[in-house]
């Protein structure tokens, strides 16, 4: 059964209908063709699918598309452009925080959320906090060290 839904994705209004059991991740990838959001598991463990839903990081495989009715969704495609990158994107490249790139969109979306949450709650974002904050995202390539560095670097820039 198809259900009509509408939401704002990366600032654009979208209206579609989709089956009730379709996840937000599938909806973003298959219905909207935004393939930057990746799917790496079937148990909500890897974080490759992380997007922002009304400003908070969520695993898009764990939200049904219909639950996002009326919401604001931001994906990796919506945070910066090639010529105007988000500081988190710049930092991932500058710190060599990615290798195969598959976990990267989810890491970047989680990283941005971490920095935003920390600054909202006024908590220091040290290495331990970053590692703790990234533990919902798997990376099999980098050993995390450069990802942690990237988030710390971006955090400084996002403050300024």
């Amino acid at each position, binding site marked *: 059964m198809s259900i009509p839904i509408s939401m704002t994705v990366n600032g654009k209004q979208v209206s579609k209908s989709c*089956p009730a*059991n379709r996840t937000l991740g599938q909806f973003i*990838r298959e219905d909207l063709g*935004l*393939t*930057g*959001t*990746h*799917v*790496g*598991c*079937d*148990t909500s*463990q*890897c974080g*490759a699918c992380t997007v922002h839903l009304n400003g908070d990081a969520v695993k898009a495989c764990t939200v049904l598309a219909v639950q996002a009715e009326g919401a604001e969704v931001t*994906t*990796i*495609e919506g945070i*910066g*452009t*090639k010529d105007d*990158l988000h500081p988190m*994107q710049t930092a*991932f*490249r*500058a710190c*060599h925080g*990615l*290798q*195969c*790139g*598959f*976990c*990267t*969109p989810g890491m*970047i979306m989680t990283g941005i959320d971490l920095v935003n949450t920390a600054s909202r709650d006024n908590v220091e974002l040290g*290495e*331990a906090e*970053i*590692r*703790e904050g*990234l*533990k919902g*995202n*798997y*990376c*099999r*390539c*980098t*050993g*995390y*060290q*450069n*990802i*942690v560095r990237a988030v710390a670097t971006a955090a400084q820039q996002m403050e300024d």
Partner: protein
Amino acid sequence: MVAKNIGEPVLRKEDARFITGKGNYTDDINLRGQAHAFFVRAPVARAMITSLDCSAAEAADGVVAVLTGAQVAEDGLGSLPCGWMVLSKDGSEMKQPPHPPLAADRINYSGEPFAVVIADTLQQARDAAELVEVEFDELDAVVSVADAQSGPQIHPEVPDNTNYDWELGERDETLKAIENAHHVTRLSLVNNRLIPNAIEPRAAIGDYNSGTDEITLYTTSQNPHLARLVLTAFVQLAPEHKLRIIAPDVGGGFGSKIFIYSEETVVAWAARKLDLPIKWTADRSESFLTDAHGRDHVSEAELAMDENGNFLALRVKTLANMGAYLSTFASAVPTYLYGTLLAGQYKTPNVYVEVQAVMTNTAPVDAYRGAGRPEATYLLERIVEIAAQEMNMDPAELRRKNFIQPEDFPYQTPVALEYDIGDYEASLDKALAMADYAGFSARREASVAEGKLRGIGFSCYIEACGLAPSQVAGSLGAGVGLWESGEVRVNPTGSVTVMTGSHSHGQGHETTFAQLVASQLGISIDDVEVIHGDTGKMDFGMGTYGSRSLSVGGSALMKAADKIVAKGKKIAGHLMDAKSEDIDFDDGEFKVRESNLSKTFQEIAFAAYVPHDYPLEELEPGLTEKAFYDPANFTYPAGTHICEVEIDPDTGVTSVVKFTAVDDFGTIINPMIVEGQVHGGIAQGIGQAMLEHGIYDETGQLQTGSFMDYCMPRADDLPNFDVGMTTTVCTHNPVGAKGCGEAGAIGSPPAVINAITNALGVREIDMPATPLNVWQTLQNATHEDARGE
């Protein structure tokens, strides 16, 4: 020789698309009108299929077809072969069972596919798969490696479930040396089974064009040309020139995407059969069940020493689990990539190794990051550590004493390899300094004062990379040569397109190879585009594994670039009225020696394509060169890893508080990328040592079939790593590089376990050293002490 902008930490070109979500992975590709495949998999590990009825599934909504193993056989699709012949001690060839892409009558491991449902949507295919009616006659499964040879026979072709019984080295000399030695250290150990888990699951899309009778297969492959060769020459899927394989962006491999699997074979075959594009993407459960697993050895070893701790002989006996079928490279892993490395960094005069490969009703086991070399290193560096305990010697000094010395190179080991160059003491000393070994006892005291245990562990590893010198590989049973190809195309405006048969799935070739070619041609790396992963674009290639891309693939590109310069000189000579021998090429300019005449690289490129006044009988237009490079020897990266742990004795929780890696990779093009490779390798090595274990129950059900049950390192499980380098330049490839992709995973596990046993004051602990395992080991040790044992 390599010069200029080599050695610079240039930021990666490929990142631009990955950080913006513009990567193009296989599952991102959708073809017009595509159908979706869902594989029907066996829920049991060993069984006969007694009946299979697909009629209800075929009648379900949206279903295009349900194809079975019987149809695969009918269409004459061959078995998925293992490409490396291993001979047993008695000279007989290894026993290789057929591996049908879809099982027709017998099931040999849980998760093995026996049918595929093709439907308009994935949901329809998945739903219809529930309607496939199958009955099994279940048989007792063979699961543990140790019991495999005495268990029920899995394949009629493989008696005693043993593929081969292989040996290397001098048996009699070794046994004699052990018998007469002052001291012999003995050790039994298990190398735990691992599941690779690249974060991008495997995927494939088959596309058939009936007009041209061509199949295009998009797939997550580390070596598309090899896949094409196997699928055409052996599996008989199509003639080689009618199959194009594209491996676009690939999200990590670590070995698991080298092999030729059922799914891509079936998807390509079905696409032609049904004249329809067909897509399949593994879900993570399928990855766990069917990606080739790694390691899984059970070994016994003896190390003989004289009274001063000089190593006299090493004897090793290993049982290696191959799983239910021989995967593409499986036979080579516990033999040529394992037995040959058992000399390590040491001048042990006698080494003898026996390996029996056995089959079990588990997923096939094949190369996983390091492949054979981590198993060799783990065994050797564990037994050396225990030998130091038993001889009451400092573990670093015992190693140092036995190192092959710089003046000994080239060094012929007793197990077939000839090391070209190295300086093992230099790496050890640098690592000892970086790890502040001198300060360890003070740190240990501080830990003890806080009720904690602290330990330090060493690992001095060596690996053989740059797979592979074809002559050596051939003499060792390889079915193919293992050279690499490269092509440098200079475009008329002077920009350059580079084609390589290597494949990047995270290694950063688009940057490293651009640096290499740009520096050879004296141009900007922004003017170099590296293309890989498409059999329709480059001649041939062997792909990426065995840390071979730069040393073999990069060397091919250097040869091609040299040819470009040679031809450029001829063109320059013609344009400036000089002999080509009198032209020097430097920093992007062709200069007539002892004159002020010169032409830029761009001018020469343009002239090559606008040959209005060319002496065409002497000089062909165009500026494109190809080269093939076959290495003369393996390369031998080596180094020292030092791990320091702190353990809470009440909980067994173990923290890696310091990890130092000093590696000698030869010439380094991009140190930033190399460090990243080391980080990733160490993370996987620590994962093996402390967290990861692929476990089957006694019926052959995978107990660790999801990220909830199989514990991979997360960001908060790991420390920062201290990475240092020493350099001896590889003597036999033009780049001077040795390879860096696997070292981290090879060197780290024994360093971690040696640190843990050192902290606990015990002789042994099995991997993974989970908190429970550590706590239990400590309890047992305490009780033994109390009993005065």
